[in-house]
């Protein structure tokens, strides 16, 4: 079994995440059938594939949200299944960030409170957490919207808030599942541009699941998931 790994041209750091022989079925339906993947630290990787190919399942296994029936995921050299659920939960909170298709913001909170959430959950004091959150608004072109409820925002604005929430705690890895899936082309481009720039600035590794080639084109590399297996395609040019 060959591991689909990052090309040698990718900068820095060695492998941060690795999946070997992942198998996972939902009932009788196989989603992953021996998927292998290796992700370099600081890399922006796009995971592509048709609907139902297993790409989101792969993402959730890498993030420790789903546990595979067989196979191993290693983060920073250590197996996820060697850690207790409490440790995995701490890992997801402190070292991973997430962006989903529909933002999944908390509508009762203001935009800045939404962004500050990972910091508050990590134990930072409220004033400090909100101050860090506010730093993101100008960067994302959302100045003046800090106190807006996210329900009052457009889809594109809300997704930028979700992006800030995913990156505010400076995670090692940002997992993004169809982050532009609910947006029109222009807003999707804005979100991808901001996401990749911000992640590269702070050295966050990004794994983006997408079925859109124009989204994948923001990545350093893409892999394609077909029938629960991963195949490599292009190499990095950045």
């Amino acid at each position, binding site marked *: 079994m060959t591991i689909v790994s990052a090309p040698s041209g990718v900068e820095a750091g060695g492998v941060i995440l690795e999946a070997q022989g992942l198998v996972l079925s939902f009932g009788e339906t196989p989603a992953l059938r021996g998927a292998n993947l290796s992700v370099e630290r600081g890399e922006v990787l796009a995971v592509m594939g048709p609907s139902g190919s297993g790409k989101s399942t792969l993402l959730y296994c890498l993030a420790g949200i789903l546990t595979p029936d067989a196979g191993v995921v290693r983060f920073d050299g250590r197996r996820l299944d060697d850690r207790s659920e409490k440790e995995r939960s701490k890992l997801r909170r402190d070292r991973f960030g997430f962006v989903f298709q529909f933002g999944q913001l908390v509508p009762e909170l203001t935009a800045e409170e939404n962004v500050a959430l990972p910091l508050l959950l990590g134990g930072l004091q409220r004033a400090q957490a909100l101050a860090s959150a506010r730093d993101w608004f100008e960067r994302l072109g959302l100045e003046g919207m800090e106190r807006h409820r996210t329900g009052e925002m457009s889809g594109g604005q809300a997704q930028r808030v979700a992006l800030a929430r995913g990156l505010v705690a400076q995670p090692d890895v940002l997992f993004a599942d169809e982050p532009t899936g609910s947006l029109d082309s222009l807003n999707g481009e804005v979100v991808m541009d901001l996401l990749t720039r911000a992640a590269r600035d702070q050295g966050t590794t990004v794994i983006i699941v997408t079925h*859109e*080639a*124009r989204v994948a*084109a923001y990545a350093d590399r893409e892999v394609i998931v077909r029938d629960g297996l991963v195949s490599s395609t*292009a*190499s990095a*040019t*950045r």
Partner: protein
Amino acid sequence: MALLGLLDREPSHGYDLKRDYDTFFGRGRPLPYGQVYATLARLARDGKAVTGETEPGAGPDRKRYRITERGRDEIEVWLSEPVPAEPHLQTDLFVKVVLSLMLGRPAEAYLDAQRTAHLRRMRELTELKQRGDLVDALLADHGLFHLDADLRWIDITAARLAALAGEVRA
């Protein structure tokens, strides 16, 4: 037609037209001077542009060209007409897939290689878009959307290869 359009802004020397053409439309393929002057001569011959008097001074480019009413009418019509919406059915992509299937060669491997090449080019264009100004971004987007359309076609063709093989070998 692009040169005639640029001339519609104001009377210009061939040099100015070439410079602006290269800036906005050339994108790595600058227009040769010979082609600029040949085009201007043709426009003048066809009554779409006229030359003013040759200006004094050094250098070969002392003629200033001005668009005529006829030239302006032509630009107006051209700008309002849509480009024919070509289905691209006879492109190399299609020919390669069909011929591969006819000859029993691995069409899927070709489609994978083509997908890789398309994605690589899309990455380059995206980098250009992120680095450049709005003109760069719009040109890059034009390329990106076309490549994206090809990729959708590649994906759907890959999913239908078995059925297509049946038809072309029948």
